[in-house]
């Protein structure tokens, strides 16, 4: 029996010719990642077991992105702890305020993850790098600590769901709508313990920003990872960017899949996930009248350049509705600068939106846009659980940058096509 892309990458990193679903393997890691929330717990574990060295200082990334710039004294202390650790072990890829971006936008942008890699990160959205044709998955802090010490970890080889994409996305429909639609179809545990392997003629029409967004939310279907084939789009993205030589794996023709999902991109509509699960999806045509208090455009899901361009296209010459706060957050410093140079920031500020420095802040109710009791937000982030962005009685509606920007203009969840 043939192997899926994921199985091939895992086999190669375990030094095996072949692996089977369910097999327990020990795999070498190309990168171990942590942030300012998960790294302190990992560092405590690292020190508890008496470790005094890391396996490879160039293969660890520590990214202070969640509660930074420090939102309070406790957050500041957590960052200090990570900063000291990074300095002590001379970690090459340590990103502090000024250089920092949201980890899952930053590492691909900087070429730190390349196709064929095997990556663990103490952040559930580590699955984002599947867009590059890498195996990458979220773990906890203890696995991060063990990974930093040993440079390897154990995995159970997953079986896969094949998601075949056909056609091309219509105007105002994006990668976010693809992944929300898929989660709506299979549910928040629809891919539990499994890989989501994307394939089909529709892949080539998807930009890298769309693919990163889709792979990013694989975890929201419970998946271990989401992965895209490496093609010309991937290699063009990686040119002058990838810091190591990419290794291209392709699924065997006779690879086995537990189930199949087909999505016709041409037929997709802008999609919104209602509170309080990402699977509670409706097309924009089924939304009805939902009044909102806040819009957030940003995060590791949708804080990339294309997302900001889409928002700017809609906000240009328009105003954010009275009573709505529109918060726009570029995911990295580079995206920030590009947005300045392209004139997007003028558009945002003239529209009455705020444009902030890179941070995960509001996505997880940390800072920079926490919701109060009864407040509703349309957000391009990834989770709409109870209390995710603030008060336990607040509500989050997940949507694309196009829908979020259009909603900011009207004050209601809005189809971008229907703007005057």
């Amino acid at each position, binding site marked *: 029996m043939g192997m899926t892309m994921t199985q091939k990458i895992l086999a190669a990193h375990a030094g095996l010719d072949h692996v089977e679903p369910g097999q327990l393997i020990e795999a070498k890691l190309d990168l171990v990642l942590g942030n300012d929330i998960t790294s302190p717990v990992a560092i405590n574990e690292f020190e508890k*077991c008496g470790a005094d060295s890391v396996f490879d200082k160039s293969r660890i990334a520590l990214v202070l992105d969640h509660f930074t710039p420090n939102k309070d004294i406790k957050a500041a202390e957590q960052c200090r702890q990570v900063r000291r650790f990074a300095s002590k072990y001379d970690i090459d890829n340590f990103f502090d305020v000024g250089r920092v971006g949201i980890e899952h936008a930053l590492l691909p942008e900087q070429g730190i993850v390349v196709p064929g890699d095997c990556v663990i990160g103490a952040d559930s959205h580590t699955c984002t790098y599947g867009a590059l044709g890498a195996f990458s998955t979220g773990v*906890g802090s203890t696995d991060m600590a063990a990974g930093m010490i040993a440079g390897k970890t154990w995995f159970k080889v997953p079986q896969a769901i094949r998601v075949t994409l056909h056609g091309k996305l219509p105007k105002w429909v994006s990668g976010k709508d693809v992944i929300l639609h898929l989660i709506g179809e299979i549910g928040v545990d629809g891919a539990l313990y499994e890989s989501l392997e994307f394939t089909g003629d529709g892949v080539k029409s998807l930009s890298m920003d769309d693919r990163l967004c889709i792979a990013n939310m694989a975890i929201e279907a419970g998946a271990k990872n989401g992965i895209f084939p490496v093609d010309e789009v991937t290699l063009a993205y990686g040119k002058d960017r990838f810091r190591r030589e990419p290794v291209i794996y392709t699924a065997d023709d006779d690879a086995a899949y537990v189930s199949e999902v087909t999505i016709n991109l041409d037929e997709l509509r802008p999609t919104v996930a209602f509170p309080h699960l990402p699977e509670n999806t409706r097309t924009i045509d089924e939304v009805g009248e939902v009044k909102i208090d806040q819009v957030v455009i940003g995060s590791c899901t949708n804080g990339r350049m294309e997302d900001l361009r889409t928002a700017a296209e809609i906000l240009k010459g328009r105003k954010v509705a009275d009573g709505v706060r529109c918060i726009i957050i570029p995911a990295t410093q580079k995206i920030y600068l590009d947005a300045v140079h392209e004139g997007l920031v003028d558009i945002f500020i003239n529209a009455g939106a705020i444009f902030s420095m890179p941070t995960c802040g509001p996505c997880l109710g940390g800072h920079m846009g926490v919701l109060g009791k009864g407040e509703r937000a349309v957000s391009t982030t990834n989770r709409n659980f109870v209390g995710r962005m603030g008060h336990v009685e607040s509500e989050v509606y997940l949507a694309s940058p196009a829908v979020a920007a259009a909603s900011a203009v009207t004050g209601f969840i809005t189809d971008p096509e229907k703007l005057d």
Partner: protein
Amino acid sequence: MNAHGFVHRYGDNVDTDVIIPARYLNTASHEELAAHCMEDIDKEFVHNVKQGDIIVAGKNFGCGSSREHAPIAIKASGISCVIAPTFARIFYRNSINIGLAILECPEAAAEIQGGDEVSVDFDTGVITDVTTGKTYKAQPFPPFIQNIIEKGGLLNSLKQG
């Protein structure tokens, strides 16, 4: 190795944001995390929970964020075992890594009610609802996993040999 206590029952898809809201992730202190465990889904939990108690929940328990703070908060609150039909995979791995016993058992998760007195034998995987007298069988942990849980987590187990 055994667990014995009273049951706190929850539904499907209990996510790590309600287990420990992100507003409390500015600390790694086990005691502080435990003080806010389940706060956004059950404000009374921290007042009602007693050492050894058991959580029984619906499918996909622990979905969402990879925060290890979630199983840490549950364990530090006194919970000795979580029983559910399925767990989100990162939560499953984290729980074992920090030494929180978790068992997949759809039948037990469907039938055991909140407030029931339950005991678990980790050697055999037998779950006994003392209140109703019914027993259920979960897959027992292999010895190396039991060792991790008994030693209080993966890195503790490595350190102590």
